[in-house]
């Protein structure tokens, strides 16, 4: 597509859903109510690990106002030793995460749920449920969970022939690392830990579900995929998908954390039992105790290099907490960390460790920031050891088109080198830091990016405007980009395009809003639909003019006769053709459903400047630049927004965010006061440099942009702090107590 001619692609248009969102009218999950609606609350485990001997709900059921009580017995039973895969999830785990079956596996694990006429009565009734527990030993940390005397969470899971909390292993191998390290002049090996961090969406999970007497079920909820909600609810309740209509509410943030269900199937069963619509809304404390987060990890990374900076070998061992069910993102940690580099010899191994924490959920490039943290911190030390600029050393080793990645694929059309070159040339990187206890860190990050299933329908209204329906919840402005593309293709004003998110009954199957896939995939189906519509419009004009459709061109929003017919008929606008639709063949509209492929990977380079207060241990971010290969920025402001948001989350992960557990295995900081996400006064302006290397496999050149900008963040910040103090840090977060302790230890060591 010729950039010069673009009227809407690349423009900072006002999002179609914007006015509703700045006036408070937009309807998020908890904003929905129904006549006759009742409220449900969840009883949660007081123990981090226990067998459930029995549950007695009689007293709760007898409480006036209570309309229904649900336990695991009310749901489809999945044997614990048989996988039930749905996408990357397993429904036997999803069922047990939603409501505990044989055991409770973390403090806060749902055990039962009550629906009553008020939320207060439902909460009161929960207290009347009697659960007989056999308390078991528990482990929340990786080392405790994999210790020889640890109590396995599952009887059937074995590792190397023995019952174990190591639930899985993944290995990526390329070349021969022993031979590689033998060639190295410098070898650096370090061990690191990262803590679990929550996705931190401001909107708690919520839903309203109504099950009619005939079983037809309507779900209003906030999720990253209404089709995921439908499918998981169908699996867990046994209701056929065709009887479930899942309506996507506006979503108040997800970042991966809303790619699974917690509430919808529970509300469905309670609604079916009570005959009333049921609303459930989590409290923030429930969100923090029992949803997400992403894994905490421990890892050891070893990298070997020649004196000239050529990387010759890389070895990574990554242990990730899965929480209480298998499925930590080891693929992201072990698979992404070495990937940006053309290292001939790599061995990268990930271990999936279950422990008595809430089940992890996806978080923005799941696992990748963890692996990148280890690798990018070691790379920094390697550059330091051989006396090379850390970005120049990375550039020297970067993957190019044709490089085979450690996890298999051969790169095509990537902008890694261009991204690093842009960082090197940036005014930020050229400006030297001069202050005391100031430091600069850099890091790279890589992410797979996804394609997958999407559907769209493009309809021309009778007055010649356009309604586009897609199947992906709009989590960060995707409607605006879709409107840009549609207006561009049709050659009409942006304001004439409406973009709606369809529910599961009104649009074809569309996979999750996740994997940085939404604009990539929806642009493909919207483009195909719009092209079909343009063909129809040409046919309609041809019919009116009595000429062949091949002699009609569509230009600037009008049909025009061409070739021998040029100038023989006045052009016809979309409005004129829309008005004549009835007499020229009926409604004008077309859909497309695809399993999209060709989502090229994402790559980002971050530059971070910090200043450390050595007395207080606080870190101030002085300046931050995110450079990223964004393919083609369809709506640059929302691309920048993705980059800036990713940066802020990376800073939070690096500096303050962590789950703290007490001695009883309970989360000790389940609030936004104690779980410290970055606030406005913590951050400076966040600079962005968009490097546009269009994806040749996409009609508009789109490349996913949502996840890559989180990946380098923790490493870039850690490298900056290390640089500021001359002390290497290996454990996140770099919170004030940890920094003060490191400075004290360093001074003590110097004095000795």
């Amino acid at each position: 597509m010729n950039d010069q001619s673009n009227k809407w692609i690349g423009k900072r248009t006002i999002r179609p859903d914007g006015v509703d969102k700045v006036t408070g009218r937009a309807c998020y999950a908890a904003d929905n109510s129904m006549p006759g609606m009742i409220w449900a609350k969840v009883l949660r485990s007081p123990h981090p690990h226990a067998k459930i001997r029995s549950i007695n709900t009689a007293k709760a059921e007898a409480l006036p106002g209570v309309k229904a009580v649900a336990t695991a017995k009310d749901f489809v039973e999945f044997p614990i030793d048989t996988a039930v895969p749905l996408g990357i999830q397993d429904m036997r785990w999803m069922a047990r995460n939603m409501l505990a079956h044989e055991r409770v596996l973390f403090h806060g694990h749902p055990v039962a749920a009550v629906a009553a006429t008020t939320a207060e009565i439902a909460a009161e009734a929960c207290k009347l449920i009697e659960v007989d527990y056999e308390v078991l030993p528990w482990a929340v940390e990786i080392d405790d969970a994999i210790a020889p005397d640890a109590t396995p969470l599952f009887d059937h899971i074995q590792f190397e022939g023995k019952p174990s909390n190591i639930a899985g292993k993944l290995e990526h191998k390329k070349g021969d690392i022993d031979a590689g390290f033998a060639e190295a002049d410098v070898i650096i090996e370090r061990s690191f830990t990262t803590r679990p961090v929550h996705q931190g969406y401001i909107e708690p999970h919520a839903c309203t579900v109504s099950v009619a007497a005939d079983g037809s079920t309507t779900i209003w909820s906030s999720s990253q995929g209404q089709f995921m909600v439908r499918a998981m609810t169908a699996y867990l309740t046994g209701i056929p998908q065709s009887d479930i209509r899942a309506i996507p509410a506006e979503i108040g943030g997800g970042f991966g954390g809303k790619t699974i269900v917690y509430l919808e199937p529970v509300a469905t069963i309670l609604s079916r039992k009570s005959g009333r619509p049921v609303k459930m809304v989590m409290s923030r404390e429930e969100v923090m105790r029992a949803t997400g987060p992403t894994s905490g990890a421990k890892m050891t990374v070893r990298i070997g290099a020649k004196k000239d900076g050529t990387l010759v070998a890389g070895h990574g061992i990554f242990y990730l907490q899965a929480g209480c069910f298998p499925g930590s993102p080891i693929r992201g940690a072990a698979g992404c960390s070495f990937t940006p580099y053309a290292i001939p010899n790599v061995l990268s191994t990930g271990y999936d460790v279950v422990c008595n924490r809430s089940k992890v959920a996806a978080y923005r490039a799941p696992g990748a920031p963890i692996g990148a943290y280890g690798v990018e911190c070691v790379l920094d030390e390697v550059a330091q050891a051989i006396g090379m600029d850390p970005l120049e050393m990375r550039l020297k080793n970067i993957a190019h088109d044709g490089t085979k990645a450690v996890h298999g694929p051969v790169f095509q059309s990537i902008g890694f080198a261009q991204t690093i070159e842009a960082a090197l040339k940036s005014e930020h990187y050229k400006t030297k830091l001069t202050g005391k206890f100031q430091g600069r860190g850099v890091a790279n990050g890589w992410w797979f990016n996804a394609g997958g299933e999407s559907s769209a329908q493009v309809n021309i209204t009778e007055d010649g405007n356009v309604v586009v329906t897609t199947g992906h919840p709009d989590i960060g402005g995707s409607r605006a980009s879709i409107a840009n593309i549609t207006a561009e293709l049709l050659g009409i004003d942006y304001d004439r395009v409406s973009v709606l998110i369809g529910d599961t009954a009104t649009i074809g199957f569309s996979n999750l809003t996740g994997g940085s896939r939404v604009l990539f995939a929806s642009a493909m189906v919207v483009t195909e639909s719009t092209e079909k519509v343009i063909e129809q419009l040409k046919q309609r004009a041809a019919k009116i003019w009595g000429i062949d459709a091949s002699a009609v061109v569509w230009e600037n929003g009008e049909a025009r006769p061409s070739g021998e017919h040029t100038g023989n008929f006045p052009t016809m606008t979309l409005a004129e053709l829309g008005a004549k639709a009835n007499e020229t063949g009926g409604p004008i509209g077309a859909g497309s459903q695809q399993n999209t492929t060709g989502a090229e990977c994402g790559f980002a380079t971050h530059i971070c400047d910090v200043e450390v207060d050595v007395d207080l241990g606080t870190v101030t971010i002085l300046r931050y630049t995110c450079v990223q290969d964004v393919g083609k920025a369809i709506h640059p402001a929302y691309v920048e927004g993705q980059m800036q948001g990713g940066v802020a989350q990376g800073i939070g992960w690096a500096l303050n965010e962590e789950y703290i557990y007490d001695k009883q295995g309970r989360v000790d900081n389940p609030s936004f006061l104690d779980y410290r996400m970055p606030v406005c006064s913590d951050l400076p302006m966040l600079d962005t440099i968009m490097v546009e290397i269009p994806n040749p496999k996409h009609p508009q050149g789109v490349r996913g942009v949502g996840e890559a900008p989180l990946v380098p963040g923790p490493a870039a910040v850690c490298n900056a702090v290390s640089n500021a103090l001359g002390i290497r840090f290996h454990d996140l977060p770099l919170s004030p107590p940890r920094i003060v302790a490191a400075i004290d230890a360093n001074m003590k060591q110097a004095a000795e």
Partner: protein
Amino acid sequence: MAKIHVTTTINGDPTEFLCDPAESMLDALRGPLGLTGAKEGCGTGDCGACSITVDGRLVCSCLMLAAEAEGHEIATIEGMAQGEKLHPLQQKFLELAALQCGICTPGVLVAAKSLLERNPDPSETEVRYWLAGNLCRCTGYDKIVRAVMETAAEMREAAR
């Protein structure tokens, strides 16, 4: 327990409602009053998504009892635009893409309007500290701060 009868003003309209003694202003707004623009992100006054003003003072409505509205003037996000005419802050947030998911946006706008009423010419640092009680997980605050600063500049220009 008997409900409490409250007489108040919401977005300029005389309003009466009944509430439980323990009911928060946020629950009253979102429930019987049908004003769901204020959001509950935390319920503990940490996220600012429920921001409203009471007699012009910025408060977290989750920390205020509904009964405390008696005799006071409440303003919520629903009262910020004048009919179809958006407040300059609302317009600027749209132009600069200062929202992504939008859940924090009502609270941020109410807080920012409250800032500009007190300080029409805030520094970046003043904006950042005033909005430090409004969590946003999507934007990294960059475009929010820019939108507030630019709006302030335009409103000063318009007032000259």
